[in-house]
């Protein structure tokens, strides 16, 4: 099938690419751009490992055509840290022991980031809801929730 042009911004870098219509955003990231932070844990929308931010909103990259992301800003886990400074969420995940095997981590972080961007005052219930579509087999979620809560708290303190 014929490739079609794709203009896309990923982690602040602009790309002009040509991709096949059946390429998913996840394949584009992982296979064409070597951004392997997003994981394919199921390929069917269930696990959450492939979650990225599209214009600040968490979406499943395994169920998004690369071409559908045309003209959008994509943020992957690789784009969370700014100039070597970890995002507060990343730092908090480390400090709270929210990372075990790490396979779910990038998806969790993106869901959490999406929440923090859209609802900086989110409480425990909203945090659970935001990550409810993300399966973690290692942590039992407690420390992930604590890690996100701590960042939300901090953003409150600053006010």
């Amino acid at each position: 099938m014929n490739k079609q042009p794709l203009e896309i911004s990923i982690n602040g870098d602009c790309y002009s690419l040509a991709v096949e219509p059946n390429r998913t955003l996840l394949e584009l990231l992982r296979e064409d751009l070597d951004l392997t932070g997003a994981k394919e844990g199921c390929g069917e929308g269930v696990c959450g490992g492939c979650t990225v931010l599209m214009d600040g909103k968490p979406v499943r990259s395994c169920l998004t055509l690369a071409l559908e992301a045309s003209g959008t800003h994509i943020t992957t886990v690789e784009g969370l840290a700014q100039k070597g400074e970890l995002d507060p969420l990343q730092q908090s995940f480390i400090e709270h022991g929210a990372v075990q095997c790490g396979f779910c981590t990038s998806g969790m972080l993106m869901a959490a980031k999406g929440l923090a961007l859209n609802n900086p005052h989110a409480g425990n219930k909203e945090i659970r809801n935001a990550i409810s579509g993300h399966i973690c087999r290692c942590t039992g979620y407690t420390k992930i929730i604590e890690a996100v809560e701590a960042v939300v708290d901090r953003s409150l303190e600053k006010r």
Partner: protein
Amino acid sequence: MSNYAFIGKSMPRVDSRAKVTGEALFTADLRLPKMLTGKILRSPYPHARILNIDISEALRVPGVKAIVTGRDVIQRKWGVFGYTQDQQFLPADRVRFIGEEVAAVAAVDEDSAQRAIDCIRVDYEILEAVFDAMESLAPTAPLLHDNFPHNINVHVPINVGDVEKGFAESYYVREDTFTASEDSYFQGEPYAVVARFDTDNNLEIWMPNAGPHMKAKPLSNALGIPLNKIRVRKITIGGAFGGRSEIAPADLICALLARKIGRPVKIVYTREENSIATRQGHALITTIKTGVRQDGRVIARDVTCYMDGGAYSSTGPIAVSVPFLCMEQAYKMEHVRYNGYRIYTNKPPRGMIRIHGRAFACGVDTQLDMIGEHLGIDPVTMRLVNAREPGEFTNTKSHVASCAMKETITKAAEKSGWNDKWGKLPPLRGIGIGCNSVQTGFPMGIRGGSQAIIKLNEDGGATVISGVVDNGQGNDNMLVQIAAEELGIRTEDVQLVTADTEVTPSDPGAYSQVSTFIGGHAVKNAAENVRRQLFEIAAKTLNVKVDDLKARDRMIYVKDSPDTGIPLKKVVRMILAQGKSVSGQGDYWPKVDPKREWVKNPFGQMCGAFSFGTTVAEVEVDPETGKVTVLEVTAAQDVGFALNPLVLEGQFQGSIAMGGQGGILTEGHVWDGGSVLNPTQLEYKVPLACDMPKINTIIIESNDPEGPYGTKESGMSIAMSAAQAYAAAVSNAIGVYMTDFPLTPDKILEALQNKVESETPNQNEDVMEKALELIVPAV
């Protein structure tokens, strides 16, 4: 104790930065030059003879580079044990489950590989299949393996004391049967393998594994090349939970493809393949007969367990034994008999999982509650009366050096408010307790010990070389903590070279909860060795005795005068200047009975230490839907010593999610013949964040005399006891002892309704309907 710099401290893990930035590479993330994509053709039949495989059309598919079938493998069956060799990877003659590997293709991309797979023609002669363990035992059932009569793969018989006599002496005896369907690991990461051969026929291979050395030897056998040519490389691993310990067919297939075409090959499993073609957990039928004294103390127990093992042995003898061992470790009994059978069926092979044998473990504890009710003894007392105590021997003659089982029970009960709740909760609320014990290590033959090497660099940094693997539980961090502590350097000064069979010495792997106890111990010993070398020079320089020295924060001090010291780096340089290296070796071999064997001689010291755990769960049941809401869970474990409380808590919490929340409430496979109907996380209900309860964790330290710093194992006995506690709590809430796991809402509702019906005199239908209405107003 508190004198440690890193040991016993909550510290974030060294591997987490790479994981939160997305830099950590898992197997599927690897990309090598000229790499091809591999795909596997699987049997659509549960049992069939392979008559012919025609690959001619597939070979013509553009982009296809290599195809392998049963003709490409050494005709030698694999088994974890000599007496369980029953599995030919890529069988040429016969397939025994839906999903078994039949052929594989390497091609330039996934689409071409899939097209070629679709073009392979296989002629099968369909054979009769059997899907149920009990049916499989029948004389008329098709035989899966010629040399295993009655489809019995393993029979573990254990008989200690005189059970019949024990029952005769008992005040009360009862027998109950407990069942559970198959459960699955659902590790975050689906299985994947990357393999490449160099021109000298050396294999480099990456895959999620629970011990690289346990992968390497069978690969060497299956490929017919020496062990030193097999290089299982370190890679980030997305979970194991008891899986991924032995060689998987995909490992060999990927290597065969890579060898055939001379290019690297990557195979990444779909979620479905991970569920149907890597080994998963057993279904169980367990009958437990227990006799007790009037005070609840168990005198005799007779257990018969049938495990549905699927088509091949895998870790069969271990799988059959472990549920029994956990029980005999946790609870005292005077007389005990066990007959454990693992039965072949035409389903994917099964193995050990974090809550392996849930029907067994939950059966033992549920029955204790049944007995307690009969005797008028509450569950906590029932457990205290029977709990293992330090210094005792298990029935199969393992000495239990350290044991704080009773403390886990009392602390968990206290924290959960047991006394205020037991028998006092409103209807449909329930509280339950479960206790278990897990072995730190299995008898592993020559792979039972671990060795480590440490070298110091001229700047005082250390490189630690160890076979220990990190599946996600934090083993890498554990090694760094130990090395930094012993050497007196900082954690950032420690570099790890681990889990790589080319360089790292042998290690038993993470499969049997021994990473700290054995692997960590070896690193500790190696570090002590290196430190001694440093101290000898430092002692001379400082004019003190070696024993007076102490290493901390990159300095070597005189113990009582912290101002007198010398930078560690300087000592290293002094040694190097003498033309010597600063490196050392250390090893650890657990004090187990080498003659102990799973089937032939299940007696003697099983492993170095045992962990003990108690969980209390409190639940609420919706009487109309049978749905369970878990309100609070309290878990207490005797871990020996807490190396890193932060990591431990995470292990406890994960164990509760997998063992209790998933393992008892929702998880189980549903079958249609030999087909798994729920191979993905959509229909196999692993727990989600929104459904998790509040969790309290209690760490109890019994300071094991053998464990490094007194450490044993973390989390496993919580997973098991959480399952038991959840089961007990649900039973308590609805007033019916539940015996078939998982306890999905449909089963709970049915139990509730049956209870109401049975409590209602049958002749009076009006009353019955009224009672039913109370439970399910709308029905």
